[in-house]
């Protein structure tokens, strides 16, 4: 009896719901498609994961009103992959959307891209900071933008040495060490440290996606840095592969006097504002030279000049804004996505600083880039 009632009720609900959808659909306010005849979908994290991507998307929307459809992926993207995939296929369900910028391309991107291609083979995908295996991903999407991780395996120890480091501490955890590029970078870093005569220290931190979540990981950093500084001395450079650990890492470096060469995703807005209690006012929002100057002032005031550095542009912000720019130019037929120099020129212009770009392999357009670091107080 109860089963039949249940089925009946569900059936009624579904029918009514679909009817409701039909009636509301026509009256739904649609974003003006613009005169260009196409739209670009963009999917980013929310501000609780990494603010740069979201702000980059906002900046792109402000730059091209009506051109973009912005959605976000789950904060718990590792656990909620189905939702992530549905968000992307949802964007592709709009026939006007001709390109999708995915920033960051968290796990599930390959599955989502393949699903979209079943019905929309011509969709252009631009991915920022892809997490999945690069050789697999590069064959699936048109363009990937990512800091050159293997190259950073050399530049970070060199920078640390320049800043006076005698040891380099690398915080990570098994899940990240299963990312091919992060593992490769750690190995390169170790080799480069040996070459430069710096001691390389690997410390396992709790995984922020593990049972303790982000708070446990941050707590660990705050507690562990003073221990390591006591053991290796102040001239130890701190590095971590995880975004959530950057703020406690900078705060701990500030307190103990350790060296902080750059974040996992180098950016003036990643970790610095929170750790230094820097207020991002409306005047300096999105204005990276002004933000750099404000951090510089704080670092010098605290008497830590020469101990902190980063790239002068936020990679997450750049991937959103630059990704949209690249997608737009490609849709207008003004940019060949296979031409690495042309893409680098577009991204450099958005960044406002010069960018050196490299291709991973000839199987696709997996573009890895590097930007010169800026040491605060120098």
């Amino acid at each position, binding site marked *: *009896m*109860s*089963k039949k*009632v*249940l*089925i009946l*009720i*569900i059936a009624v*609900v579904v029918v*009514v*719901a*679909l009817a*409701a*959808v*039909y009636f*509301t*659909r026509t009256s*739904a306010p649609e974003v003006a498609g613009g005169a260009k005849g196409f739209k670009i979908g963009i999917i980013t994290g*929310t*501000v609780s994961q990494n603010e740069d991507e979201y702000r980059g*998307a906002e900046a792109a929307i402000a730059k091209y009103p009506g051109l973009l459809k*912005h*959605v*976000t992926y*789950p*904060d718990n993207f*590792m*656990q*909620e*992959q*189905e*939702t992530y*995939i*549905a*968000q992307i*296929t*949802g964007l592709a*369900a*709009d026939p006007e959307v001709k390109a999708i910028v995915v920033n960051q391309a968290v796990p*599930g991107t*390959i*599955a989502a891209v*393949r*699903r979209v291609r079943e019905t929309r083979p011509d969709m252009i995908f631009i991915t920022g900071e892809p997490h*999945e*295996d690069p050789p*697999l*991903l590069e064959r699936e999407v048109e363009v990937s933008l990512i800091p050159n991780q293997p190259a950073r395996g050399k530049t970070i120890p060199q920078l640390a040495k320049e800043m006076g480091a005698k040891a380099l501490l690398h915080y990570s955890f*098994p*899940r990240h*060490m*299963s*990312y*091919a590029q992060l*593992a*490769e970078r750690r*190995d390169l870093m170790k080799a480069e440290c040996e070459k430069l005569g710096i001691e390389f220290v690997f410390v396992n931190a709790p995984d922020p*996606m*593990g*049972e303790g979540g982000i708070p446990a990981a941050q707590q660990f950093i705050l507690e562990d840095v003073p221990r390591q500084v006591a053991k290796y001395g102040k001239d130890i450079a701190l590095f971590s592969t995880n975004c959530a650990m950057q703020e406690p890492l900078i705060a701990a470096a500030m307190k103990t006097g350790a060296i902080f060469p750059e974040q996992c995703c180098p950016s003036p807005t990643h970790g610095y504002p929170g750790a230094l209690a820097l207020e991002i006012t409306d005047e300096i929002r999105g204005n990276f030279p002004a933000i750099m100057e404000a951090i510089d002032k704080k670092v010098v005031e605290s008497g830590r000049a020469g101990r902190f550095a980063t790239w002068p542009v936020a990679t997450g912000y750049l991937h959103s804004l630059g990704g949209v720019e690249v997608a737009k130019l490609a849709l207008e037929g003004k940019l060949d996505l296979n031409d690495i120099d042309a893409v680098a020129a577009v991204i450099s212009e958005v960044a406002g600083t010069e960018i050196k770009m490299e291709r991973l392999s000839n199987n696709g357009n997996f573009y890895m880039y590097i930007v010169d670091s800026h040491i605060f107080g120098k």
Partner: protein
Amino acid sequence: MNEPKITPQTLPEKTAGQVKTGKKFEGIMGELYVPLFFAVLCLLGIVAAGLNPRFLLNEIIIRLARNSFLVLSLIIPVIAGLGLNFGIVIGAMSGQAALIIITHLEIGGLPGFLLAALISVPFALITGYLTGLVLNRAKGREMVTGYILGFFANGVYQLIFLVLVGTLIPMSNPKMMLSSGIGLRNTIDLIAINKALDNALLSSVRLGAFKIPWATFLAIGLLCLFTSYFTKTKLGQQMRAVGQDRHIAAVSGINVDRIRLIAIMISTVLGAWGQLIYLQNIGTFNTYNSHEQVGMFSIAAILIGGASISKATIWNALVGVLLFHTLFVVSPLAGQRILGIPQVGEYFRSFLAYGIIAVALALHAWQTKKKAASREKE
């Protein structure tokens, strides 16, 4: 507890029916509170999201096919009184181990999928047996024990595939392994068995505009038949007896621990197969994370379908998948449309998704209390 003990053979549904005829309607309504509540939420969500109905229906069909098997695998432990089996995460890991083997051996298509199903059985039986042993030592606290066991098993799983593969376990496959030769990469491409089951039968027969994974639905149907047949067998009846009262069952000569072990082992094997069905549909798999998605969401789905920790039916599972995933599809867009800010959609969705689990449990507790109160009056 002064009510007369129910004899082991009595089915729980009948006890609901035994309430006086005047209260029959109320009894049915009591069971339907939770699904009805969520049906209304779904309806509101669908109206608010204003989704393309074709996209919505397509998405629901995909998710029914993808998740039903996993959710159905939860039923048998509930009958045996073990509560909701968070241990299916361990089954999912067994399924993934089988997938890693067939991907390494490069066996694709339906034969590959079936072979994976076969290989996963011994893994699932062994891990299920071990899970059962632990749960038998934690009677009355099976759910939280199972939940924590999942974290423990995750550590073992990472140890095996990140450290032991390439060292203790000889394997060499540059496509699947990290460049250091130790450990697997974080993404495994399942293109060889992508949709192997979904497209195994009548793949060209469409239902209107929708592509239906006939073979997957057939597998789900068979599992439904198996589950309802199983509860009528001697073993199934013994499980019911154990589920209703361990002590009475033990007195009547049933080996309680053995019955509980069997229930968990069956559930673990079904969980492994469910994960195979899920992943063949997705098409790629995150070596170290795909299984984490399984336990929590399957359990949330069956709870929304009206199940409780002491009673679950096939209909609870199927209706639950339908409602839970409809909510998951519509809620991000509903949040975004109502409030006009993209990331609020995500917050709205996670508020709903996790709120759901809490509400379902609270409604169930409230009902149990009410039932107990009305019984005492009689």
